[in-house]
């Protein structure tokens, strides 16, 4: 598809008028999806979805159109030309866009890792046969994902991966389960078997009668998956320059220097790990690292081209939402987590986080999956789901006691619209207090 896409753009470019520039951003995938429930196959299928966004720019005026790019030359040519003619007729009648910013110094890149060492049908059989009667629920997504950019200035950027993700839970009873994931470009049955074996060994701990936790403040360990949920909520506008400038960021106080996190907290957008394309839809190359929080203090925000133009800043992001967020690990040994927790609650996962007071950075959410009451460093019993309500300044600040020495890479397995890319790498955190409200 790579060369086809470049030829497609080249073809369209020939019909541009002298003062017109065309930017084309391609998103494509061929993905096998297999949905599982109770260790069996619920809904398997294949989706081939490829589309291109055409942006026409003329005298500081712009508009865009998204159309399919099927690989059928006659169809694509007709559709593409029609879309371009449509844009050419519309754009002159729009006002100039004062915040239009696009890259005008072509910089071409290529990052392709297309070797696929997995077969979705084989993986499916491996999963089914590997459940050993356990109640496995989840989703396998495997195949090729592609992103491309090309413009009438000669720039060409390509990113592709053949990869799979398996995101699943092993249910013990009711709403109690261990949640796991595995991904990459090389399916190793032994890796999957090992994870399943580990879950099976630990399942009895979830079968004990669940205990209810009275509302109140508790010592809590948030495992990396739980910390990831908080990070993902903050990614929703928290690190956005536009949100900050319009007084709507959940981290408004942090970036206004009215509050800080613990000095143990270092947060970065880290595209260097290679899970995401390094270019955006306006042709800019994204920086590999953006330090967002250093030593608990706000450092940089994520700025899109549009926001950069509006506020005369440098752009460093596509969407102003981190795609590869990392939080630096600390010193708490994983083997010592329960001892360090002492008596409190071990939280494996959080769920359905939202803001109860966004300007103050106050968030609420639920515990989920495999959360336990811990006494004197020993797991006592699973707990019924509990709601917490605290500010991020409490969670990453005054209540933060320690950070685990190891982080976990948590793949982005979202598939709204298309397979999302990116990975969050975060440690677990020990809090001397978290307020459970219901």
């Amino acid at each position: 598809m790579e060369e086809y896409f470049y030829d497609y753009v080249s073809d369209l470019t020939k019909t541009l008028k002298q003062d017109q520039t065309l930017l084309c951003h391609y998103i494509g995938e061929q993905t096998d999806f297999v949905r599982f429930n109770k260790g069996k196959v619920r809904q398997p299928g294949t989706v081939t979805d490829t589309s291109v966004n055409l942006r026409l720019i003329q005298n500081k005026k712009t508009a865009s159109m998204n159309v399919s790019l099927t690989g059928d030359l006659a169809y694509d040519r007709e559709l593409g030309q029609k879309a371009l003619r449509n844009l050419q007729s519309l754009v002159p009648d729009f006002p100039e866009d004062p915040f239009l910013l696009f890259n005008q110094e072509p910089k071409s890149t290529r990052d392709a890792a297309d070797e696929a060492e997995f077969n979705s049908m084989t993986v499916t059989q491996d999963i089914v046969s590997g459940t050993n009667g356990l109640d496995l629920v989840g989703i396998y997504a495997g195949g090729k994902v592609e992103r491309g950019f090309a413009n009438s200035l000669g720039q060409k950027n390509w990113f592709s991966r053949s990869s799979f993700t398996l995101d699943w839970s092993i249910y013990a009873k009711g709403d109690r389960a261990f949640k796991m994931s595995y991904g990459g470009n090389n399916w190793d049955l032994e890796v999957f078997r090992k994870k399943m074996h580990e879950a099976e060994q630990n399942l009895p701990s979830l079968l004990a009668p669940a205990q209810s936790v009275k509302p109140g403040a508790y010592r809590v360990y948030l495992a990396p998956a739980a910390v990831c949920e908080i990070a993902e909520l903050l990614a929703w506008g928290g690190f956005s320059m536009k949100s900050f400038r319009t007084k709507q960021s959940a981290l408004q106080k942090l970036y206004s220097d009215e509050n800080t996190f613990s000095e143990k907290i270092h947060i970065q957008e880290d595209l260097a790990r290679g899970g995401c394309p390094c270019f955006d839809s306006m042709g800019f190359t994204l920086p590999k690292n953006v330090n967002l929080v250093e030593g608990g203090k706000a450092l940089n925000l994520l700025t899109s081209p549009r926001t950069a133009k509006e506020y005369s800043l440098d752009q460093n992001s596509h969407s102003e939402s981190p795609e590869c967020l990392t939080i630096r690990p600390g010193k708490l040994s994983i083997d010592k987590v329960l001892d360090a927790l002492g008596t409190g609650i071990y939280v494996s996962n959080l769920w359905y986080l939202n803001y109860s007071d966004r300007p103050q950075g106050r968030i609420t959410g639920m515990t989920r999956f495999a959360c336990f009451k811990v006494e004197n460093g020993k797991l006592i019993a699973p707990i019924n789901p509990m709601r917490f309500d605290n500010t991020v300044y409490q969670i990453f600040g005054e209540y933060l006691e320690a950070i685990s020495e190891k982080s976990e890479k948590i793949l982005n397995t979202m598939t709204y619209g298309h397979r999302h890319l990116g990975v969050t790498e975060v440690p677990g955190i020990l809090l001397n207090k978290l307020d459970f409200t219901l």
Partner: protein
Amino acid sequence: MQLERLNRILKDHSSGLDFCSVRYLEQKSQSLTVRHGVVVPYHESISEGIMVTVHNHGGMGYAATADLTDSSIKRAFEQAREWAAASSQCSIENFSKVEMPSSKGTYQSPEKKPWNSTTIQEKVEHLRKVSELLKKHPDIVDSHASVSRIEERTMLVSTSGSQVEQIFGFVIPTMGVTAHKGGESVSRSLDGFIGGRQGGHEVLEEGISEAYAHQIQEEALELLVAPDCPTVTADLILDPGQMMLQIHESIGHPIELDRILGDERNYAGTSFVTMDMFGKFQYGSKYLNVTYDPTQKNEFASFSHDDEATQADKCFLIKDGILLRPLGGVISGHRAGQKHVANSRAVGWQRPPIDRMANLNLEPGNSSLDELIASVDSGVYMSTNLSWSIDDSRNKFQFGCEYARLIEGGKLKGVVKKPNYRGLSRSFWRSLDGVADASTVRALGTPYCGKGEPNQAIRVGHASPHCLFRQIEIFGGH
């Protein structure tokens, strides 16, 4: 793509299969926004594709593609067959035993005024004028006036004899402001992102209006200087804008049959509702009557047939507080041994149908809004959803609204900000003590109901009057 070709495709490629369907979708969308007086670049999108679904020898499989050439469609059938074969010995259900619908019909969204009765530039100018009103006050630091238009044409044919053709027109007007002063920010909007309806230009005119712009701005400035909502256990009146979210999260999702069957446990969750509750469980007070009604004109998720060709009908899900039936499509209904409804839906051609609520409505009562307010000695009136969080079994929830007013001695009093409330679905609906009459009903809709693996964000509609709940845990900002 024409119906004739779709039928030919089905005929050419479905021989020997226990069941096969081909679903086609063409979607065109437009997005127009003016943000704080600046026109955001216009965007249009066209997407077209088919999904082939096969049930064979007990297994099932699907394949979807945007490439509508004969060779690509042939490949899609091969892929769907391969998946059906691969899953025939390990499927959760014997899909060949599911009696798939045999139904024919057509549908077209009603429209009072054609969407194209004004040009794109005229629509942008309309938004720009309203935007100028929204941003007028110096304390308004951000604002937007937007409208999205989506047109869809779908066709479905199947070997069980179904043939359905539907044409939809959706409009989603949104408008909002953020006010800031002295370190405090508040937001106020036109229905959040839930103002979607089927219709034409009239939806834009009714939504993005100068009158609403003035109201939103005034209320935002009121909120800026208002005290926080108090922390009390008190009576609560919710407007239709918040009722929509309440119904959606703590009635709609818990009674989706695929959740009860466990399909969503890795992602969207499960349910506190169990199969033995249907027909007898006291879900709410006697005032709670909830219907499933994709036949409702103009509502966001209206249609004649779902995406597996089950014909849509209105039915009660909860009557006089008693839970009657789940929301499950033909496959879930078969798996659970329950009567199914037309709720097997897919967001597009690229995703397979799963159980999705469509139009879920709370039937109006007999009280006027004034009577409901007059019956509250001490309480809070809340308007327009801002925040939502609920546990994975759909029981423990916490919701926040944009705007609230205290109620004292049966009268509306001062404005309070950051109103939130929390509760348990199992008991919350039993505290329903009054439902306003039809004059207060508003039909709203959101395109952002997320669920499924792979994920799908789909359109849903909810119509509700104002409702009164007794003794709810209410709180504000700290």
